């Protein structure tokens, strides 16, 4: 693109952002901060200005913050046209136009796709409609769940023990509510952190009074005569009475509106290059459509250039900033999105953090502290390299391990570390389930090398 053209884009171009949440807002702010003076439109199907989601499963459930008051702080004025409460329904790449649910069309010179993910609903529609069956993704979901928890249910049943589900169970226990949690794998957090760490999470949950049921699936939700949920049926034939059921089975990417557009978009997200430019379905990169946040899948140099999908707050911010920067820059001025995956959570009084891509690791070493004390640092290895680390109440060391990942340090960790226990001298299998099986809520998904997304197989490849 000529310098002239770029100058005009920055001065009077039209930029459209679809998805008015964390990634969308941060991108808009970055565009303005970097001098974009043209037309900026934010399209969001939620009727609210951008708000923050992590508190919805933490402080909000405990009544410490209102779920309706988690607006994202603004970094600066963005002087944008807001089209809130209206979904984008289609994209015409050739004509550079976004179609809206109300029939309107919006033209762009540059488009940012930041439509994120939504909660995977209970798979039987009729059961999903029972009163008391909830998911947790939006502000309304949280407000509804808070109201139900306040009403003092006899028992809450959480389906799926990923981070989100475990956080909900933890909040319920803190509120003194009886709670059961069912998980297909052998323990909570197995998809995200593997079975070894999962068993620590299992002990934590059980000790805090969660009725944890593993190696089971929920087969049916049973309603009463007036359409309220009253019981949960499990694959081991047991039946648990519950009047609130929280379905926490991971998420679905919001890409349906791109069907037929010719973009490389599908159930695994929208593929983009390291510069956040979207690929079309042939694997050819576009130059005016960008992607950021939970909906994106992008290749990462540190992880063998596999496509990574990250449902991480910090990734959404960093990727949005990079995408915005690249949207109004050219060639050498563009930057790659090289964010180190990082995630935090807190449950049952324990602060959990991770860096890197734990599910990529076959082996795990507890380099500091001990599993039994629930205070430790675990390091994941893949093909002789450190690829991830997790801490339970030990976050102050994480920075060190992040640098180990960045420099591809050798695994197993041979050097001594402070507070190394006998259990940490040898690596053990990390205990991730068979990668060809879907697990919900891994939060980091490796999805191979192909930018096109024609098939729906889950296969983080491990070579």
């Amino acid at each position: 693109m000529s310098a002239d053209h770029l100058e005009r884009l920055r001065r009077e171009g039209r930029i459209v952002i679809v998805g008015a949440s964390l990634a969308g807002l941060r991108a808009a702010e970055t565009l303005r901060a970097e001098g974009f003076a043209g037309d900026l439109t934010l399209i969001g199907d939620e009727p609210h200005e951008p708000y923050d989601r992590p508190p919805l499963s933490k402080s909000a459930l405990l009544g410490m913050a209102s779920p309706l008051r988690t607006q994202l702080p603004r970094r600066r004025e963005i002087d944008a046209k807001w089209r809130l409460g209206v979904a984008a329904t289609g994209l015409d790449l050739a004509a550079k136009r976004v179609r809206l649910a109300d029939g309107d069309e919006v033209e762009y010179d540059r488009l940012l796709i930041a439509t994120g993910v939504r909660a995977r609903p209970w798979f039987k529609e009729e059961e999903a409609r029972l009163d008391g069956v909830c998911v947790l993704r939006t502000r309304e979901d949280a407000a509804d769940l808070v109201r139900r928890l306040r009403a003092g249910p006899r028992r809450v049943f959480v389906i799926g023990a990923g981070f989100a589900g475990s956080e909900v169970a933890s909040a319920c226990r803190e509120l003194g509510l009886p709670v059961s949690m069912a998980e297909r794998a052998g323990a909570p957090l197995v998809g995200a952190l593997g079975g070894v760490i999962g068993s620590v999470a299992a002990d934590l949950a059980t000790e805090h009074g969660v009725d944890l049921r593993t190696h089971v699936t929920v087969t049916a939700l049973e309603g009463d005569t007036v359409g309220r949920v009253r019981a949960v049926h499990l694959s081991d034939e047991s039946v648990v009475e519950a009047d609130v059921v929280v379905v926490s089975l991971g998420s679905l990417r919001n890409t349906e509106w791109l069907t037929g557009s010719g973009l490389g978009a599908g159930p695994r997200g929208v593929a983009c290059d390291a510069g956040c430019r979207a690929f079309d379905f042939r694997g050819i990169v576009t130059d005016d459509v960008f992607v950021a946040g939970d909906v994106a899948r992008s290749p990462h140099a540190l992880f063998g250039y596999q496509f990574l999908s990250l449902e991480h707050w910090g990734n959404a911010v960093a990727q949005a900033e990079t995408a915005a920067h690249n949207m109004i820059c050219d060639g050498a001025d563009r930057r790659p999105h090289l964010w180190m995956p990082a995630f935090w959570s807190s449950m049952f009084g324990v602060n959990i953090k991770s860096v890197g891509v734990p599910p990529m690791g076959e082996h795990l070493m507890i380099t500091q502290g001990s599993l039994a004390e629930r205070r430790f640092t675990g390091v994941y290895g893949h093909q002789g390299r450190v690829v991830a680390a997790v801490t339970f109440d030990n976050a102050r060391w994480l920075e060190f391990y992040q640098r180990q990942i960045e420099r591809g340090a050798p695994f197993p960790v041979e050097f001594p570390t402070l507070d190394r226990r006998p259990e940490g001298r040898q690596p053990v299998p990390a205990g991730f389930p068979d990668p060809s099986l879907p697990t919900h809520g891994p939060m980091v998904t490796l999805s191979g090398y192909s930018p096109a997304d024609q098939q729906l197989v889950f296969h983080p490849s491990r070579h």
Partner: protein
Amino acid sequence: MPHASLARQITDFGNRANPYPLYAELRRTPVLHEEEDGPYLISSYYDIEALLHDPRISSDATNLAAAGADGAGEPEETGGLPPSFLRLDPPEHDRLRRIANTGFGPPHRPRRIEGMRGAMREIVTELIDGFGDARQVDLVDQFAYPFPVTVICRLLGVPREDEPTFRTWVDPLVASLDPEKRPGGAQEAEYRQSAQEARMRLGMYLSGLVEERAREPRDDLLSDLVNSRGPDGSMTMMEVLSTSVLLLIAGHETTVNLITNGMLTLLRHPEVLGRLREDPGLSVSIVEELLRYEPPVQLVPQRTCITDIEVRGVTIPKGSRIWLMLAAGNRDPERFEDPDRFDPDRGDIQHLGFGSGIHSCFGAPLARLETQIALSELARRLENPRLVEDPPPYRENAVLRGPRHLDVAFDGVR
């Protein structure tokens, strides 16, 4: 001394008033090792920050290669008492620090520090009232020393009247923190003995109080230390004593220097002093910038590595002494724009003044609040304050660096 090593120049008393040019020179060799068996000096911000989070770096003196030769740990950690958590590694460090914290901050005592705000203001008011009709005071002896000492005594539950007694034990202990004050040779033994004796006496003095609190708990930190029975168990009597000695000493000398360095810096930057007079809220960012610009703890001289490590291509052998030059890192141009300028308005003041990582200052919330109150009250009440002598005379100590006296003249007290 044209050929003296940089490390020696830094600890040399002659350079106490302005060590910053030396630090700048030091940063040109970010990992500096000048003499065999001498320390490795780390002076760039990012390296210091990294080593403070590095699980191969130990605070435990027994991991020093020299420790074997010495036959004992550092003098300030002996004297019959076990090492305090400042000189321990995980898991002991973490356990003791967590127990100590149950008496100090959230979640158990969320209001212990903030709850002292009123008392702190009263002490400050009394001290300034005490200037009376004087038109010149030594800010160290008449203000910066008595204030934090009164506060830490009250917090711990140590009678303030006893201060002159235990001060004679605190002083040699503080001096022993200065790595170059160790004389070596024949004097070394004597020096070490005096530090050990001071520590033992202080411990014995405190043990009387601790026993009282075990029988009859009060609303103070000593009572919490001796009576805590949490998920981490409780401290042994010896651990309680080590911890109280640590808190008493750490709460003594450091804040004194921050207040004094603070007033000195403000008097050298009258426009900032003027703004503070109008807006006491500015004290928050002034204190942070002070911790960067004139940190009371200039270096952390008590680290070693439990295995060979590599920093910027230099291999530091296992057991070496490592000095983390906090004050040099705080003025690293790689990290801070225009680092030699005192500028409370810089948006990003992530200084190393309180250290970082698991040993980061335990007393930071207390020290911050004390200094904010002290500086804003001095700014508000002293009319037309001026430095009498610039630079002022400094203390010997190169680690806990600060003026020994700070004579300030003024036209009156509001």
